[in-house]
């Protein structure tokens, strides 16, 4: 019976208004969540109740209390303060990595999509080489060469997402370039650069912004994973992944050491995912972004 419902829905009746309403809900939800997280991260020095790196022996593995709402860790450090500072590092690394990647990918995708032929082949095939290795393995390879650290992790993440972002930009450029107003602009004698900058780029940006938001969620998880392995952000700087690694041996006695940093990652990932979904419904109805 339930199978029937789908089959009978020959044409989905969604009005543009309904679509706009659902996209606004995701955009507001994701945006607000992300805004709160960003404020928490930026204002961490003001908000953190304790010094995140201060070792207090008598507080070792203290349960959550009024003074330490998230408890304290193996070295007696305040988990809440460390989560706030860790969020700062995680957001900084993942957002800057995706931002750098987008800034490089946009012109590459524009060129490939606009000029096609050998320009496209050269750019696309070169970027494809990055996809030879799975993302995590490539990140690890980078770190194997350049040594561990947040900056290297950010660089690795930026490189990994370059082919994905460039491919999305290329596809949306291809679609926009076929439009009449672009053909018209060329026919009126506008140069390539002018056409790309003032006609193609503004209209082709939607999907890549969507993709960047979605990838930020993955970047966040990747950064946390690398730090968990001890290959990302290095101690004593607090990082969410690093905290999860530190508390592994005391998991059963002091679960708060593991629960709160993990929840922080999940909330941040959800914020980016919702934002990406809202942006997708608003700016990428054709589903060019992956």
């Amino acid at each position, binding site marked *: 019976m339930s199978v029937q419902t*789908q*089959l009978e829905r020959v044409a989905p009746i969604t009005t543009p208004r309904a679509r706009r309403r659902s996209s606004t809900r995701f955009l507001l939800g994701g945006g607000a969540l992300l805004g709160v997280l960003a404020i928490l991260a930026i204002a961490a020095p003001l908000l953190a109740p304790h010094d995140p790196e201060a070792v207090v022996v008598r507080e070792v593995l203290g349960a959550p209390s009024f003074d330490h709402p998230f408890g304290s860790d193996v070295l007696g450090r305040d988990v809440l303060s460390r989560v706030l500072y860790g969020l700062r590092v995680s957001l900084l690394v993942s957002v800057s990595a995706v931002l750098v990647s987008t800034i490089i990918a946009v012109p590459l995708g524009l060129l490939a999509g606009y000029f096609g032929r050998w320009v496209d082949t050269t750019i696309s095939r070169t970027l494809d080489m990055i996809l030879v290795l799975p*993302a995590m*393995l490539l990140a690890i*390879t980078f770190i*194997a060469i350049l040594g561990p650290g947040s900056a290297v992790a950010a660089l690795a993440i930026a490189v990994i997402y370059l082919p994905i972002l460039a491919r999305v930009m290329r596809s949306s450029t291809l679609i926009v370039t076929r439009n009449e107003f672009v053909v018209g602009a060329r026919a009126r004698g506008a140069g390539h650069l002018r056409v790309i900058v003032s006609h193609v780029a503004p209209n082709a940006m939607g999907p890549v912004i969507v993709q960047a938001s979605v990838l930020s969620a993955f970047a966040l998880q990747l950064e*946390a994973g690398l730090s968990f392995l001890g290959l990302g952000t290095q101690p004593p700087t607090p990082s969410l992944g690093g905290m999860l690694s530190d508390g592994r041996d005391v*998991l059963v006695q002091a679960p708060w050491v*593991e629960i709160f940093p993990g929840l922080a990652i*999940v909330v941040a990932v959800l914020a980016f995912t919702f934002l990406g979904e809202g942006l997708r419904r608003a700016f990428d109805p054709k589903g060019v972004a992956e």
Partner: protein
Amino acid sequence: MTSRLAFVARRVLLTIPVLFVMSIVVFLIIRLVPGDPVRTMLGFRATDANVAEVRHQLGLDQDILTQYLNWAGALFRGDLGSDIVSHAPLSELLAQRLPVTFELTGLAIVLAVAIGVPLGIRAATGGRWVKRLTEGFVVFGISIPDFWLGIMLVLLFTGTLAILPPSGYVPFADDPVNNLRYMILPVLTLAVGEAAYILRTTRSALTGVLDRPFITFLRAKGLSTRRIVSGHALRNAAPAIVTVIGIQIGVLLGGAIIIETLFALPGVGRLVVTAITQRNYPAVQAGVLAIAVTFIVVSLITDILVGALDPRVSDGKST
């Protein structure tokens, strides 16, 4: 049938440049290390003679082309060099460790498919509540970092319930029951996220197919809904699903690196992580190579399978 063969042959040939690029990446790992890699590797207490000897051993004192040719030649003979720390041949080390990684990722993908595909079918054809529940599972599976999920599972199964070991490993051949007991949590941890992706793909591919006109004609022919979904819609959605499963195996191999470390499984991923912290470059190379080759072979199999499932692909009619 000959066009099928040609398609397979073409796809196999395409992996050659991919393997070549991959080999260069792996080859360069040690050579791109800033400063003197051998010095970094051996630490500052090593004597100059010692450094020179290891450099010669690794062939790093020759010109780069000769280095690559020698290295690639040795690779073809199955010679991956030896571990800097234990001095054991790396090919032996991989032979011990690959089965662990294969068991982990293999079981995880089987479990992920077993959860993701049926739920995806329900999600595409079910009522509103089925759709909401499956969507919840997708968001949950995608947003939770796998290693944190693993930690939470350990907390539940070894902390609260105390029914499973938190970490460790015994080879399957020695003790199959305990091997599987050790594997349950890591496999479950890896499978949940992958199942979410497979569910999402199955749902969207199937929804797309069910909106196509030929489904209406099948209904007009008097076929039952069950028959339309299982005989036609799934068959048409299969290439998209198989493609994503192939891609997800790559993600899974990456995820295994973290999960092996978390659950102390002696697989290739853990080998690589340990080797990086010990600056044991030959072992890093061997591990990266093993995972990368696995990934390339899986992609090859996936593409051939997709070609077999969709007659238009092997006829070269669509991409």
